[in-house]
């Protein structure tokens, strides 16, 4: 199963490089097509894979540390509050390198606000968390929209920030995102066994020797860093982190030593496919923001989870 998944992923990467407004035959590519393939398509496909892996990994960690199967960067408000920080940093003319840092700062503020609102007497209420996340999304989106009107020239289109997309890709951004992904993955993988203990109630985890507050703080910062960097370069791409950890769990079990890597891999696979669809679905070469595809898939999956886990969600 693991080998099969890897083969499917590699074949998908290759296929995604070949499809687009113009389909490219790799065995009979003209010099122009070769240039498109290596200068445009390849970095874009790799970029979508890295961003998908970042969102999948963050979703896996959010769902466990927040004890909520509906949690991901979008439903917790972390993505929209990160986008808000990025938008404000650009609008106020901060250096480009500081944009992800500003996104991380506001992303953490947003996530912690949602976390505090949903925790009562040491217990996180999943329904309150989703409601607080929805409110955070509304507030952040409205401020982003306001900023767009106010700083018309300096900001990218509102569609980019709210629906996401891979409109501008370069190797520098790709390498930075890959480095952040690698560091985050190694940090989480080193704590995989501890993270497993968080599947238990907090008292049990603590009595097993896990410093729950410290582990959760680390997880929040690192997972939100993944989201903040991703959002800074691609806008808000929702629901990837919601869907893939569940698929990984159903295929390979809940053990975080497996779930971290497979959530990242499946996140990469999902976003590569979604991006390929967004590049080909509209005839004539027009491009759809990739967030529309993931939101459609994620929304349906969200409803499925609500239906199957309604009882447990409602009672916490």
């Amino acid at each position: 199963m693991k080998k099969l998944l890897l083969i499917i992923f590699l074949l998908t990467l290759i296929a995604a490089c070949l499809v687009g407004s113009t389909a490219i035959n790799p065995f009979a590519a003209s010099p122009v097509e070769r240039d498109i393939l290596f200068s445009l398509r390849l970095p874009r496909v790799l970029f979508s894979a890295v961003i998908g892996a970042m969102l999948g990994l963050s979703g896996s960690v959010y769902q466990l540390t927040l004890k909520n199967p509906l949690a991901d960067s979008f439903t917790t408000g972390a993505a929209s509050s990160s986008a808000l920080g990025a938008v404000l940093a650009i609008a106020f003319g901060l250096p480009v390198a500081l944009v992800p840092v500003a996104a991380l700062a506001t992303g953490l503020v947003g996530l912690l606000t949602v976390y505090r609102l949903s925790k009562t007497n040491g217990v996180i209420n999943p329904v309150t968390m989703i409601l607080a996340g929805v409110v955070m999304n509304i507030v952040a989106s409205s401020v982003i929209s306001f900023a767009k009107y106010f700083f018309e020239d300096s900001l990218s289109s509102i569609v980019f920030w709210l629906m996401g997309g891979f409109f501008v890709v370069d190797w520098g951004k790709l390498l930075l995102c890959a480095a952040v992904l690698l560091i985050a993955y190694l940090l989480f993988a080193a704590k995989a066994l501890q993270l497993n203990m968080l599947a238990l109630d907090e008292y049990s985890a603590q009595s097993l020797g896990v410093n729950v507050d410290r582990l959760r703080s680390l997880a929040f910062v690192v997972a939100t860093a993944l989201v903040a960097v991703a959002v800074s370069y691609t806008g808000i791409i929702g629901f990837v982190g919601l869907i893939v950890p569940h698929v990984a769990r159903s295929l390979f079990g809940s053990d975080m030593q497996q779930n971290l890597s497979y959530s990242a891999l499946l996140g990469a696979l999902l976003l590569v496919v979604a991006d390929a669809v967004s590049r080909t679905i509209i005839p004539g070469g027009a491009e759809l923001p990739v967030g529309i595809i993931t939101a459609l898939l994620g929304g349906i999956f969200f409803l499925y989870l609500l239906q199957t886990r309604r009882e447990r969600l409602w009672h916490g």
Partner: protein
Amino acid sequence: MAELWVDKLSFARGDFKLRIDQLQIRPGEKVAILGENGSGKSTLLQLLCGLLPCGGEIRYDNRPLAQIPVVQRARLFSLLPQFSELIFPFSVAEVVLFGRFPHAIGNSFSDADRQLSEQQLQQLDLLPLRERQFNELSGGEKRRVMLARVLNQQAPIIYLDEPNASLDIRHTLEIFELLGGRRETVIAPVHDINLAEQFFDRFLLLKQGRLLADVSHAHLTPELLTETYDVQVTGGTAAFTFTRR
């Protein structure tokens, strides 16, 4: 083995206050905590585990609890909370193996950890369930799995919050006999007083956050239980009869 001392322990949450002036529990003792709902039994357990902030001092082997790192605490005592759920599906075997976490080296469990887990599964009659998902089990089965996890921790002090909650009478008797025969200290709030009297050798009686009495078998009298529970108690020696006053 570890000895537990409590000195001027105090805790307050809203209107509820808990205070215990002094308490010493020696290695190997089997201590039942008795008291009506809301008397502070579970809170006392959580305080002894360092899970809630409190005044006074709790010491294990003369070492203040506050100075013991969380990782080391897990080798001193284990805890079975009143309610245990898992957010995501794990098998029974995986959950029992979690109990070896304080002993795991690096980021994985050793073969010895896995062998000990198998023994715990066998001891608690859980081998037929080992591949089942924990979240699909009945309440009593989940309780036994969590108990196996706690025993798998091999800590010298075991805190069990109502260990027989949801258990049928056969498994209740099996587990109490198992606990009674172990060398570890067992400290457990228990609601069935006759069972407690049968299997425990010391009784802490709590009333409204106060330690009303700390007695052995011989001194667990109907009068004391009457005062603790506000019901009429008659009989004695594992045959108390309770009627509303």
